[in-house]
C-alpha cells in the first residue's frame, strides 16, 4: 500500500489516497470488509476528468491488473472479462475474431469497469445506446463481502442499473459478460461534411443521423457571429470487405493504432490559450473536406484521434482543465444555442468540442444520455470559468438537461439533484448495499452521494 497523489484526467483537485493493487479476491474482499475510516473506491485508467476515482485520505483499489479475458462465445457473440481490462486490449483481442465492442467511447484507454461505472456512450448512441445496455451480466463485490451476479432482468435489476452509471458507489465489478457485434473489417466507411453555422448543423444531424451507425460533429465554439457553431460532421458505418482497398482485403481485421509520441511532462503553463485554441479551431475546420463520401478510415482516425498523442492532458499545464459535457432534450434547441453562444461570448476558448445527438436513455437512474443534444468542451482553468460554468448549469437545469458525472469536477449537490430527478432511486439502492458508506470517493463527498 502506497500513498499517492491522484487526480482525474483534467488534473484538477489532486488528493492523497492509499493505493492497493489487489491480485486476488481475498485482498479485494478484505479491502471492502475492513475499510479505513475514509472508505474505498475502485480506479481504472483514470480517464474520468474530475474526482470519481480518487479518495482523499482513504483507499483506492487500482484494478488495472485485474484484466483477464475469461471466456469468448463467438456464436452469441459475447465475451466474459475481468473488469480491469482496458477497451484497447479487449478490442485488440476481439478484432481477429471478427468481433467488435458495441460501445466505444472517445478513448480506448478506459477499463470495462470504468465504462460500466460511467455508463459510457459512443458515436453510435443514437442507434445502440450506452454501455450498460450491452452488459449481459456482472459479478458485483458488495461492501458486505458478498458477490452477487446481476442481470438486467434478474433478481435485483435495481442494483444492476444503479451500478451502470453509479460511479463505483454500489460495489466493485469483478467480472462481466458483454454482448459483442460481428464485423468484417476493422475499418469504417465515413462521410464528412462541413456546415457553416449552428442551425445548419443541428438540422443536418436531426435529419441525417438515422442513415448512419456512427455520427458526431466537431464544433467550433470560438468563432462568433454568423459562423457561430460552424462544424465538421463525420458519420459512418463499419466497413465491409468489399469497401476496402483491394490490397487490404486479405487482412481486413488488422488493427493499426499508432501512438506518434507523447507529451513528456506537464508543461509549466498551459499551451492551450485563446490564440492557440482559435488557431486549432480554424485549422480543424479548414483541413476538413467540404463534402466527401465513402472514405475508408481506421479505428484511430475515426474514433480516437486523440489516442495518437499520449498524455495530451499535460498540454494544459499544472492548473489543468475542466471538461464540461451537458445534454438537453431534443426540443430544447434554444437552450442549446444559448449555451453555445454563452461559451463563444465568454472569452473562454475550447479547442476540443464534440456535439452529438443522443438516442433513447438507459433505465439506469444516474446514466447521463437522454434523447437530445450533447456538447462537450475542454476549458483551461482561468479566472471567470466558475461563473461561466455556473451559468451553463443554470441553462441546462432550466432546459431539463444534465451534466456528465464522468466529466464533472465542480458542480454542487443541489444542482446535481435538479439534473438527475431519479437520484433518490440511486441513493436508495446505494444505502441498501452500502449502509455504512464504505464506498466513497472525492466525487461522492463533493456531491453528497
Amino acid at each position: 500500500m502506497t500513498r499517492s497523489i491522484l487526480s482525474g484526467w483534467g488534473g484538477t483537485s489532486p488528493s492523497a489516497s492509499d493505493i492497493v493493487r489487489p491480485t486476488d479476491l481475498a485482498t479485494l474482499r478484505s479491502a471492502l470488509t475492513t475499510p479505513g475510516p475514509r472508505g474505498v473506491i475502485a480506479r481504472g485508467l483514470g480517464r474520468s476528468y474530475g474526482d470519481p476515482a480518487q479518495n482523499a485520505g482513504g483507499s483506492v483499489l487500482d484494478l488495472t491488473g485485474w484484466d483477464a479475458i475469461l471466456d469468448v462465445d463467438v456464436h452469441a457473440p459475447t465475451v466474459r472479462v475481468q473488469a480491469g481490462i482496458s477497451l484497447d486490449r479487449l478490442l485488440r483481442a476481439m478484432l481477429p475474431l471478427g468481433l467488435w465492442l458495441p460501445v466505444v467511447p472517445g478513448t480506448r484507454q478506459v477499463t470495462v469497469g470504468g465504462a460500466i461505472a460511467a455508463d459510457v456512450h459512443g458515436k453510435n448512441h443514437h442507434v445502440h445506446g450506452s454501455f450498460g445496455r450491452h452488459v449481459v451480466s456482472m459479478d458485483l463485490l458488495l461492501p458486505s463481502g458478498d458477490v452477487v451476479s446481476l442481470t438486467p432482468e434478474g433478481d435485483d435489476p435495481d442494483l444492476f442499473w444503479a451500478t451502470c452509471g453509479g460511479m463505483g458507489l454500489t460495489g466493485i465489478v469483478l467480472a462481466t459478460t458483454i454482448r459483442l457485434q460481428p464485423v468484417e473489417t476493422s475499418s469504417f466507411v465515413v462521410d464528412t461534411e462541413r456546415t457553416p453555422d449552428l442551425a445548419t448543423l443541428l438540422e443536418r444531424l436531426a435529419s441525417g443521423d438515422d442513415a448512419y451507425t456512427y455520427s458526431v460533429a466537431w464544433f467550433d465554439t470560438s468563432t462568433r457571429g454568423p459562423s457561430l457553431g460552424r462544424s465538421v460532421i463525420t458519420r459512418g458505418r463499419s466497413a465491409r470487405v468489399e469497401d476496402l482497398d483491394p490490397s487490404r482485403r486479405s487482412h481486413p481485421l488488422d488493427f493499426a493504432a499508432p501512438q506518434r509520441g507523447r507529451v513528456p511532462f506537464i508543461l509549466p503553463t498551459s499551451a492551450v490559450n485563446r490564440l492557440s485554441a482559435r488557431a486549432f479551431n480554424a485549422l480543424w475546420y479548414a483541413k476538413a473536406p467540404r463534402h466527401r463520401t465513402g472514405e475508408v478510415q481506421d479505428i484511430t482516425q475515426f474514433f480516437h484521434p486523440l489516442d495518437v498523442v499520449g498524455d495530451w492532458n499535460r498540454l494544459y499545464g499544472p492548473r489543468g482543465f475542466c471538461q464540461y459535457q451537458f445534454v438537453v432534450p431534443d426540443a430544447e434547441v434554444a437552450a442549446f444555442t444559448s449555451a453555445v453562444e454563452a461559451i463563444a461570448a465568454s472569452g473562454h476558448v475550447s479547442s476540443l468540442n464534440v456535439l452529438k445527438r443522443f438516442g433513447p436513455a438507459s433505465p439506469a437512474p444516474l446514466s447521463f444520455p437522454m434523447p437530445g443534444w450533447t456538447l462537450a468542451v475542454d476549458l483551461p482553468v482561468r479566472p471567470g470559468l466558475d461563473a461561466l460554468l455556473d451559468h451553463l448549469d443554470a441553462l441546462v437545469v432550466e432546459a431539463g438537461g444534465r451534466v456528465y458525472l464522468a466529466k464533472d469536477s465542480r458542480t454542487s449537490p443541489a444542482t446535481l439533484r435538479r439534473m438527475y430527478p431519479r437520484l433518490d432511486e440511486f441513493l436508495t439502492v446505494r444505502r441498501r448495499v452500502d449502509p455504512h458508506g464504505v464506498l466513497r470517493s472525492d466525487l461522492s463527498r463533493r456531491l453528497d452521494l
Partner: protein
Amino acid sequence: MINALGAPQHLLLLGGTSDIALAIAREYARVSPALRVTLAARPGARRDAAVASLTAAGCTAVALDFDALDTAAHGTLLDGVTVDIDVAVVAFGLLGDPEQAWTEVEAARELAAVNYVGAVTTGVALGARVRAQGHGVIVALSSVAGERPRRSNFVYGSTKAGMDAFYTGLGEALREHGGRVLVVRPGFVHSRMTEGLDAAPLATTPEAVAQAVVEAVRDGKEQIWVPGTMRAVMSGLRHLPRSVFRRLPV
C-alpha cells in the same frame, strides 16, 4: 471537498472575528452557495456578531471555542469538527504596542505566544487533519513586516517571520499528503487591528486581501503578496543596505 475551480464546501477560520478572515468567508460565500463556515474564536459578543453576519451572507456558520494562548488545547482543537476542512485560514494575531513589545517582557511574551507559538501549535493540528483527510488548503496570514525587520515594529515582524517560515515549511511537508499551504503577505491593511495608525504606502483592505486569497487558492499558488506590487517592492527593500533602509520612512 474543494471543487476543481477552488470553491470549498467547508471553511475554517482560526481567529474567526478578524476582519480579513470574515472578508475571506464573504468572498467564498459568493462562489460556494451552500458554504459551511466554522468560526474558531473566543466566545463573546464579537464572535456572536461574526456568526450572525455570515449567516446573513447565506452561510451555515458554526462557532468553535478557540484561544490562541491556550496551546495545551490546540492538539484536540479540531476533534469536534467532523466535516472535512477544505480551506483553513490562520488569521489570528496581535499587533501590540511596538515600543512596549521590545521593552516590556510581558508584552513581548504575549506577542510571541499568540503570533508565533499559537500559530505553530494550531499549524500542527491543521497538518494532522490534512494528513488524515488527504486534502486541504491552509491559508496562513503572514505579513510583509516579517520579510525585513524594521525599527518601528520589529517584534511583530519577528513573530510573522517565524510563522511565515513555519507555514512555508509545512506546505512542503504536506505536499505528499495532498495538502497545500498558501502563505499570504499583505502590506498595511486597513482593519480593526490597524485602527488609528497611519497607513503605509500601498495600503490595502481586507476585501482586497480576501479576493487575492480566493484567486490564489483556485490557482494553486503557495505564496502571494497583497497588493501584488508589494512583491517587487519587498524584493527591492530586502536588498537595500541597512544604512539606507533605516533612513526610509517605513
